[in-house]
């Protein structure tokens, strides 16, 4: 089990030694159960750090942010940024390394192992508590979560409120790290694609009905792509305006921006947006589930990525985010790749 004090000790040390610019971690929010991202520069603030089952966010996206910020600075501080990552998050770092978006020396990785549990799904917890308000959740020795409410504390078996992705987790402890907190624990998931079962078995028309009902709700707040560490493009192909223009960009070039998708949040456009996103994440998505968590309209976005993750595994035996030296899924092939679908 991860000992928060060890994490703080390490954090204090690297800040004292000025080994890192700052530390990206989790701290308690002012209100409510869920924590907020913490950006800690001074050793004295280290005690704000928390580690508990509510630490759901994939913080690696702030490494992407950091790269952008650094690019804007005149003479940037070249020290690495330290970041707290779970197993799944660490896979995101690997993809970023694989795609040469970040350099290994730019990150100091504080890996935390989820061991036999994982992080919770706030929605599941709320349902479970039936009105009671959780103030704090802790790990417990035996794969339980201890939930503290005004009415006192309750023990809940982890699997009942674990985030869906944790139940199908492929990396319960970090794949890459500089410091590892907690144990590397073998955990075998019997069916890593269980969440797909219901939708996959639907008839063609039911599938369509399912996705139409959900995607019609989309308000295109783009939280899904904003929270995704793999969506690091400066300009998304669905953006209707070019960001990648400079003083010397000609009017023609500006006019070249293609409207693959209209701004109208209507069925067809929402579908194209989400399908493009899904296909661009094929072989890159590491299933941190953030897109689905942040969606204010409760669209089960994770399923789209999970489906492709499954196909990628079955068709090409490819797992994203385990080996930074592997070529990307779509920039390699095997002679024996399946082609039964081809006429």
């Amino acid at each position: 089990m991860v000992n928060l004090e060890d994490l703080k000790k390490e954090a204090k040390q690297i800040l004292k030694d000025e080994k890192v610019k700052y530390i990206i971690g989790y701290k308690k929010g002012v209100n409510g159960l869920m924590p907020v991202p913490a950006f800690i520069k001074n050793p004295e603030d280290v005690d704000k750090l928390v580690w508990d089952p509510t630490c759901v966010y994939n913080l690696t996206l702030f490494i992407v942010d950091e790269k952008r910020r650094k690019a804007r600075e005149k003479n940037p501080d070249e020290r690495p940024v330290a970041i707290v990552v779970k197993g799944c998050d660490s896979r995101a770092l690997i993809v970023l390394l694989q795609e040469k978006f970040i350099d290994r020396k730019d990150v100091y990785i504080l890996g935390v192992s989820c061991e036999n549990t994982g992080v919770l799904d706030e929605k599941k917890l709320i349902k479970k508590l039936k009105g009671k308000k959780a103030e704090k959740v802790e790990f417990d020795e035996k794969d339980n979560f201890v939930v503290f409410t005004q009415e006192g504390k309750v023990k809940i078996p982890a699997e009942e409120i674990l985030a869906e992705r944790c139940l199908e987790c492929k990396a319960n402890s970090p794949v890459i790290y500089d410091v590892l907190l907690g144990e590397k624990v073998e955990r075998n998931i019997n069916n890593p694609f269980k969440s797909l079962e219901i939708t996959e078995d639907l008839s063609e028309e039911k599938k369509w009905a399912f996705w139409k009902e959900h995607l019609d709700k989309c308000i295109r707040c783009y939280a899904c792509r904003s929270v995704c560490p793999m969506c690091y493009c400066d300009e998304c192909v669905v953006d209707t305006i070019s960001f990648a223009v400079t003083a010397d960009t000609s009017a023609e070039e500006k006019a070249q921006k293609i409207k693959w998708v209209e701004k109208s949040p209507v069925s067809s456009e929402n579908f194209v947006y989400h399908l493009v996103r899904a296909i661009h994440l094929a072989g890159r998505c590491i299933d941190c589930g953030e897109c689905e968590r942040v969606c204010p309209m409760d669209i089960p976005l994770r399923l789209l990525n999970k489906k492709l993750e499954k196909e990628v595994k079955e068709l090409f035996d490819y797992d994203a985010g385990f080996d930074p030296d592997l070529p990307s899924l779509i920039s390699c092939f095997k002679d024996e790749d399946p082609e039964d679908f081809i006429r």
Partner: protein
Amino acid sequence: MMAEEFEPKIVAFLCKWCSSAGSDLAGVSRMEYPSNVLPITVMCSGSVSPLYILSAFNRGADGVLVSGCHPGDCHYIKGNYYARRRIALINKLLEYIGLEPQRFQMSWVSAAEGTKYTQIIKDFVKELKPLGPQTKLRKDL
């Protein structure tokens, strides 16, 4: 007054060296096939971006065909292998969101296979007619 029969619109991305040449051969050999297909010649099947396919459906295509050289015959040595991978994924994705699988096809058509091209188009049209217009991804104003 009898309702006019539904005529599906098929956008076909044909690689220049094999499939497009193959379809030209069909022409040279005066093989007849339905006029529903609208060919767009690309350099290589490997250059067909998922966006092209989605955009074609979004713009009202009832079916989309991507056709390239047979494995090993690619004019650009291996472009069609990358295409095969990419297309396989789009195929699965479209099937998962409930688009009729018949609406999206990939084929290998060599420069010598005018007959095969003709047959593919005939079959494609035959399979699309009963489905009616593709409205799922079509932009409707």
